[in-house]
């Protein structure tokens, strides 16, 4: 059970301000979707929370403790990170990659308990049958699931997912988001997830943070943030929220000239 509180988080790369006074709270069992155009600072925010990048100012507190003050080994048991890009070698097997998630819990030898956790993580993503395969033999989507399974095996209180659905087909996108919802509801983990698909954010998130050029452009429930006006302001597209008997979705219509120029910078 983890509560993440970010206050006035600012990040500068030289003269460029990548994040500007971002404040957000994420409680246990909740999913916060991070949306915004390419280069708006989503990955930067996630990497600072994971302490991969240093911050410039502001604070990132996990259960009242500054994440940069937490011992790396302790932080590794609390925070599970799924990056946008993965490395592996020709000799990495699916099992070994997922087992890495248990690294913070393993001293040297691998116990039956660890193996069971790895099995659970593989099964949760329905990739148990791939356990013995080499990662480079998999399709892009399967590979992405392996790295999500690695974070699941880590069993953290806070998940940080940087576009976990990027290379997945529509079915797997839904499966992964359903899984994260299940993890949040059943295990009470907090989930911070950057997504490009606004409809996934709309459908699965408890709250949405929309950022644009490092600044908060909207923060609240999906229905409050993902409005046609906001979307036009941030993405420079015309859209419509369509409500059917089974829920609402965002229907993007067309790009507006001139508007996108001021937002799709970096």
């Amino acid at each position, binding site marked *: 059970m983890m509560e993440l509180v970010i206050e006035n988080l600012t990040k500068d790369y030289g003269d460029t301000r990548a994040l500007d006074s971002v404040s957000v709270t994420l409680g246990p069992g909740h999913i916060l979707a991070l949306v915004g155009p390419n280069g708006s600072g989503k990955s930067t925010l996630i990497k600072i929370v994971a302490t991969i990048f240093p911050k410039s100012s502001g604070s990132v507190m996990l259960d009242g403790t500054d994440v940069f003050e937490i011992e790396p080994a302790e932080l*590794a048991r609390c925070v599970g990170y799924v990056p946008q890009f993965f490395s592996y070698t020709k000799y990495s097997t699916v099992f070994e990659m997922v087992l890495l998630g248990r690294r913070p819990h393993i001293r040297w030898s691998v116990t039956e308990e660890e193996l069971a956790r790895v099995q659970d993580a593989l099964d949760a993503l329905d990739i148990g049958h791939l356990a013995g395969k080499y990662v480079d033999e998999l399709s892009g989507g399967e590979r992405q699931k392996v790295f999500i399974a690695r974070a699941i095996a880590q069993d953290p209180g806070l998940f940080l997912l940087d576009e976990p659905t990027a290379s997945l087909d529509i079915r797997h996108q839904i499966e992964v988001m359903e899984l994260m919802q299940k993890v949040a509801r059943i295990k009470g983990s907090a989930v911070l997830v950057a997504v490009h698909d606004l409809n996934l954010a709309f459908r699965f998130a408890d709250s949405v943070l929309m950022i644009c050029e490092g600044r908060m452009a909207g923060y609240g429930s999906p229905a409050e943030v993902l409005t046609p006006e906001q979307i036009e302001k941030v993405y420079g597209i015309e859209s419509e929220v369509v409500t059917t008997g089974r829920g609402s979705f965002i229907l993007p219509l067309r790009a507006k000239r001139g508007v996108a120029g001021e937002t799709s910078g970096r």
Partner: protein
Amino acid sequence: MTGKGTLHPQVRVHSLYHSTTRRRIGLIIALAVLLFFSALIAAGIGTVAIPPGDTVLAILHALAPTVFPAPSGPQTSLIVLDFRLPRILLAVLTGICLAVAGTVMQGLLRNPLVSPFTLGLSSAAAFGAAVAIVIGPAILIPFWAFGDNAFIIICAFFSGWLSMMLVYSISRLRGTTQATLILAGVVIGYIFSAGVLALKYLTNNEKLRELVVWLMGGMWGATWNAVLLLIPITLICFVLLEWKAWDLNALVAGDDIAKNVGIDVNRLRLLGLLASTFAASACLAFTGIIGFIGLMAPHICRMIIGGDYRYLIPCSALMGALILLVSDTVARTIMSPVEIPVGIIMYVVGGFFFLFLILRARGKGLF
């Protein structure tokens, strides 16, 4: 989260892990046994042939003279203990150090081209040795007491260190990529090579011969002193790097993931590079330039045992030792009593074996 209704969800990963582990441990034991018997045979062959029983007896007699009788031939003990055993042990230790250094450096820098040689370490060590050979020990009076060889060793060692420090400092600069690091290593290697070439060009004939011999590499510098110095160095570096095997495993998934599972990536890189440089340059100082093993033993072992560093490091160590020992024994005996440089055997036999493995390997590429 529970498993999705497959028959025995726990059994699959469980049996996969245990069967893989058994196979890996089996391979390591097999290599160790093979190395042991190779050493035994290597001690027996040469200008004077000694049966394996007498070799064992000579060693045991030296360890416990009261329990075991001396071997039959009068010269047996002398040949085994004073000539062949130090040489065998030097080959084994050098093989271990270079292979482990190569394995760890490849993992740390996530680059299949890395080895003590591609990072400029060997050229730097050669330069250090060349300086020592050409200018002689006269300028450093304190080392005179240890003889010429000690001076060469010390110079090779510090020069190797210097190159690694240069490469590492460059890697610590802001924004340096992995490719830059390799380039830096290669370029630093060229700079030191230029120094070696200049010395070869400027020096007189007799010294040039000495230099060429050292640059070819070989086990003829084997003494018990060298072996006794290398044993603790090898042991310490091996244990240290094996202890970091899990961290090296995590580094495979990238710096960010490694950091996320609690690893101080910069510290791991520094520690790992220092330990592997230490082991490699210590051996290089005694043997001269030995190539191939640091680059190839890790790749051969990845193909046969997989990427888990807990098993890959010991497997590479044994494989490196085996390749170097067999090559040296062949080099020593094939044209007996004339010795040929170990590199000739090793590059040809090892090279073809490696090509054979590549052609049989799954898919293309190496890493």
